[in-house]
């Protein structure tokens, strides 16, 4: 391996120049000859019967080529599949039609589509579709949907129950019998809207002679789209090419296969022309998946010394109107197994009810279940500390899995691969000057300034996943990855990956990895992703898996390339392969540094194949198919300090310290960027973002005017640092960083705000902690007089100070 290492170096992202100068190639940038444009008519009602549908006027508009309804799809386009069939849960998967035929179930459910010469004609024609609805009673909230007498969404899902999933380990009930302390709380994980900068879209090109489909799609997983398009649109999988060049963010919302995708394909088949569909932002709010939306009732049993002994969770998850592609796995497996977090709780149970409601379907949103889990356990740790009058730091120290206990099997039956939870916490406490802050906090209070500090010590589970584990969980796919490394005659390398980075920077990271191993400049390594015709297979980018799983496959393929090159080099140098030394891109004979061949020279000769060793095939290309043996377990400690304006309830973040251990780091700048983005999204959930439906099922935060995605002015400087505990079960030691920031951050902010307000007796405020919610909590606490503070002068919320 090279001495001056690309691996571990801060290298600027090669993706950025094209993306920030407007030269990216997104789905909307594909313009094919003869291409038509599709627009989708969406239900304005959350729940209704379609009583009348007449498209004749729309069909007569000049420039309109087709108007499609649900009837047109019958027998030709199947329902949108659910691809995570969680076992032993009485899972119901009602048909999710690409266009509703008689019954719409959420505001935004598709009812018709127009295909026309221009987008403007298509949108104008939508207005001419004559459709009548008979509104039905609406239910948008999980518990109400599960209650007797609730409006029913699907005939084949009685009581709107999508599934009932349970997990238990140890003796949870025993732990609560006679527990010294029990802390109980209900938490609401509000619904969020992913809001990728590039909305969803597709360009479908059906070639009727060859019966082949090319689908340009904004997706995190082109091969999964190929498979799902195949089963939905009845096209053989080997006749589909899915192409995704630049994808403008996903955050989970571009994992699923959507009705719009299936419709675009069908529209191309019907019209015989390429068809483009690009959703607008309003449509993105309504028709692309939402995230979170879970209520949890939590009980934590503990000893008086702070030792956590038992944990029981009852969760209610809002699945929306239909089950999106991966939806059932999110609030179950991805949530429940990691709930015990960094702690040695032995007895744990989790009971999850999923419900259908008249809302947009939910699915994986950055972190997918794990932010909910980390929030829950970290809030409970603080509530326990409050109950026992302990410092939140001490409660955590008391319960951490010790550094010498790894690999450690948790109460969630996961085997945490490696960790040093105390190490990241100590580093974060030092960076944040926790003790100094605690002293200063008292002085500030005397001056009428209300500051607080919040901790989040988290472990998450990513690097998805061993394929047998995926199968056992009912995921209808594998989670291995292929990697191919090909050296061309000119000494340049091409890397093929089945992951599909869309902001994570692996075009750079993988070039560093391979360049480092081959001893060639990173600039000489091109990384190809997002093309099912070029790349043999792949499961995509999500679950912080690309570098840990896809990168390991590439690592192994590169090793094979070096092994083969060594044979060729030895042959050319008339030496034994066993005597070859490979260093900094050059093979030489042991003890004779002058007898050498560069890898580029070897690549040329291997590609020409004029003089190959006996039994060695031409070319210099190798592939590996890597299936991990375990998940990976990044961890860390985040500390947030805040100040609350007691008169207005406004929260200002003073400092945000993130100490993460994501295993070995290939590019520190990219890792920092992932932490920044993740923390920004977590702060967004903590303070700003909330998808709100009214009683009629209208999304009242359905635009950027109402739904507060944080911008730069909302986000503090994020102070990052790391410890490095390698992943022991892959070759690079990488764990993953795509989701840690989101998983770690919301509770750090909420814990800090509650720390400010705890002298008033305030124990919790549900997210988002908007100024009004904080102000209302202060008002309620003042009027109930439950403050435990040392005196009124120290309490916030005195107006007019």
């Amino acid at each position, binding site marked *: 391996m090279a001495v001056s290492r690309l691996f571990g170096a801060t290298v600027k992202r090669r993706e950025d120049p094209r993306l920030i100068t407007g030269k990216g190639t997104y789905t909307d940038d594909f313009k094919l000859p003869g291409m038509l444009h599709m627009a989708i008519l969406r239900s304005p009602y959350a729940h209704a019967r379609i009583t009348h549908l007449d498209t004749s006027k729309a069909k007569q508009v000049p420039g309109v080529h087709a108007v499609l309804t649900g009837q047109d799809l019958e027998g030709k386009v199947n329902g949108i599949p659910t691809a995570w069939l969680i076992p032993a849960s009485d899972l119901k998967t009602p048909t999710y039609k690409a266009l509703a035929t008689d019954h719409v179930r959420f505001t935004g459910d598709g009812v018709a589509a127009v295909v026309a010469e221009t987008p*403007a004609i298509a949108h104008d024609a939508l207005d001419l579709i004559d459709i009548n609805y008979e509104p039905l009673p609406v239910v948008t909230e999980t518990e109400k949907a599960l209650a007797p007498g609730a409006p029913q969404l699907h005939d084949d899902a009685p009581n709107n129950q999508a599934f009932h999933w349970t997990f238990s380990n140890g003796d949870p009930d025993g732990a609560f019998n006679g527990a010294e302390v029990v802390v109980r709380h209900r938490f609401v994980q509000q619904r969020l809207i992913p809001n990728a900068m590039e909305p969803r879209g597709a360009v479908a090109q059906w070639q009727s002679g060859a019966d082949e489909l090319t689908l340009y799609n904004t997706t995190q997983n082109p091969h999964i789209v190929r498979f799902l398009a195949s089963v939905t649109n009845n096209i053989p999988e080997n006749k589909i090419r899915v192409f995704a060049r630049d994808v403008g963010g996903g955050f989970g919302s571009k994992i699923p296969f959507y009705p719009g995708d299936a419709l675009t394909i069908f529209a191309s088949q019907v019209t015989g022309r390429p068809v483009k569909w690009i959703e607008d932002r309003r449509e993105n709010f309504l028709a692309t998946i939402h995230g979170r939306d879970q209520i949890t009732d939590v009980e934590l049993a503990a000893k008086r010394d702070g030792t956590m002994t038992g944990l029981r969770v009852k969760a209610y998850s809002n699945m929306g109107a239909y089950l999106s592609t991966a939806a059932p796995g999110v609030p179950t497996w991805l949530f429940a197994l990691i709930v015990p977090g960094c702690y040695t709780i032995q007895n744990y149970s989790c009971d999850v009810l999923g419900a259908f409601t008249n809302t947009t379907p939910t699915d994986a949103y950055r972190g997918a279940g794990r932010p909910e889990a980390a929030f829950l356990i970290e809030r409970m740790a603080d509530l326990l500390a409050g109950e026992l009058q302990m410092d939140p730091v001490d409660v955590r120290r008391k319960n951490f899995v010790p550094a010498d206990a790894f690999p450690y099997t948790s109460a969630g039956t996961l085997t945490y691969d490696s960790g040093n939870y105390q190490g990241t916490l100590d580093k974060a406490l030092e960076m944040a000057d926790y003790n100094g802050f605690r002293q200063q906090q008292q002085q500030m209070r005397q001056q009428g300034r209300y500051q607080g500090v919040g901790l989040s010590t988290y472990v998450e589970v990513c690097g998805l996943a061993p394929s047998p584990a995926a199968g056992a969980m009912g995921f209808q796919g594998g989670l291995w990855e292929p990697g191919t490394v090909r050296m061309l005659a000119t000494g340049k390398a091409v890397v093929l990956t089945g992951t599909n980075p869309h902001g994570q920077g692996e075009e750079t990271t993988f070039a560093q990895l391979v360049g480092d191993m081959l001893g060639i400049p990173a600039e000489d390594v091109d990384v190809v992703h997002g093309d099912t015709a070029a790349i043999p297979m792949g499961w995509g980018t999500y679950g912080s898996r690309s570098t840990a799983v896809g990168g390991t496959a590439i690592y192994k393929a590169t090793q094979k390339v070096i092994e083969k090159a060594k044979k060729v080099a030895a042959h050319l140098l008339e030496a034994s392969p066993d005597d070859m030394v490979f260093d900094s891109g050059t093979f030489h004979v042991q003890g004779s540094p002058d007898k050498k061949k560069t890898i580029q020279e070897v690549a040329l000769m291997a590609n020409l194949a004029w003089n190959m060793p006996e039994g060695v095939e031409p070319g210099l290309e190798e592939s590996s198919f890597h299936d991990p043996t375990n998940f990976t377990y990044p961890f860390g400690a985040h500390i947030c300090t805040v100040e609350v304006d007691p008169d207005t309830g*406004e929260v200002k973040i003073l400092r945000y310290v993130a100490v993460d251990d994501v295993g070995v780091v290939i590019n520190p700048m990219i890792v920092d960027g992932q932490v920044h983005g993740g923390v920004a999204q977590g702060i967004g959930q903590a303070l700003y973002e909330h998808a709100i439906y009214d009683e009629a099922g209208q999304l*009242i935060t359905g635009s*950027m*005017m109402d*739904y507060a995605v944080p911008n730069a002015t909302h986000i503090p400087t994020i102070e990052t640092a790391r410890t490095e505990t390698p992943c022991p079960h892959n070759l690079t030691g990488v764990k993953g960083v795509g989701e840690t920031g989101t998983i770690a951050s919301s509770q750090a902010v909420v814990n800090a705000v509650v720390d400010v307000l705890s002298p008033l007796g305030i124990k919790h405020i549900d997210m988002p902690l*908007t*100024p009004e919610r904080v102000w209302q909590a202060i008002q309620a606490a003042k009027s109930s007089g439950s403050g435990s503070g040392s005196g009124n002068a120290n309490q916030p919320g005195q107006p*007019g100070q």
Partner: protein
Amino acid sequence: MYPSNFAYAAPTSLADVLAQMQAAGDDGKLLAGGQSLIPMLKLRLAEPKTVIDLGKVQSLRGIRVDGNSIVIGAMTPYVDVLDSADVQRRCPLLVQTISQVGDPQVRSRGTVGGSIAHADPAGDLPAAAVALGAVVTATGPSGNHTYDAANFFQDVLTTALEPNEVVTSVSFSATDAPGTGTAYLKHRHPASGYAVVGIAAIVMVGADGNCQAARIGITGAGSHATRATSTEQALAGKPLDAQSVAAACANAADGVDLMGDSYASSDYRAHLIRVLSQRAVLQAAQNARR
């Protein structure tokens, strides 16, 4: 986000504008900086048959000093107001207010007349306009017509303008007399950047250090910008210390037809009016003493 079809007219003179308005009738819509109308067109919340763009009418642009007034042409973009030395020196409340409008892009395109005529209940400029006692000049087929800001804003997106009138300029009184200070404080909606509550305050400090007179404009909380007249009266003659100001501002929300939404209830808006009025008055008083 595709507007319905509309005809586009780009007159170059005020006379042309009036002719186009007459031709379009109720189906016409004036386009100023486009910061509100363009999104409404894209969402098909507005579907005018004719859009009359005022952007090419040069006579509607510019800032001039007329005695004790600053007269700003309706099509003057915010950024020109911010950059005007006359405005900075003689009417700092406009700078304090407009610098908090939207973002640099909005301030580059958005116009003074557009904001005033659109009368968004959460717009920033109307608070300053009512506090400063601005006079809105409009032109119609029968000539010019002036409106006091106090009577101009009537309801949500509703003004006293006649349908066939176009705002041509807005005149703001200078506040550069010695002992006068101003401030604009705003609780900014985290998504839209609009004022959940915005308070524009003008405080005249007497020789005794007490409040000689105060004018307070409120935006965001109700259907239209209004003055906090009872608080203004309560402040007159009172010391400008925290306690007195707090007492005077306790009634600041009186008379506001409070609105509530998913972000801020009407109770919270009333509370913000009180808190921000206190703070704005104290800050204006501090600025007066500088």
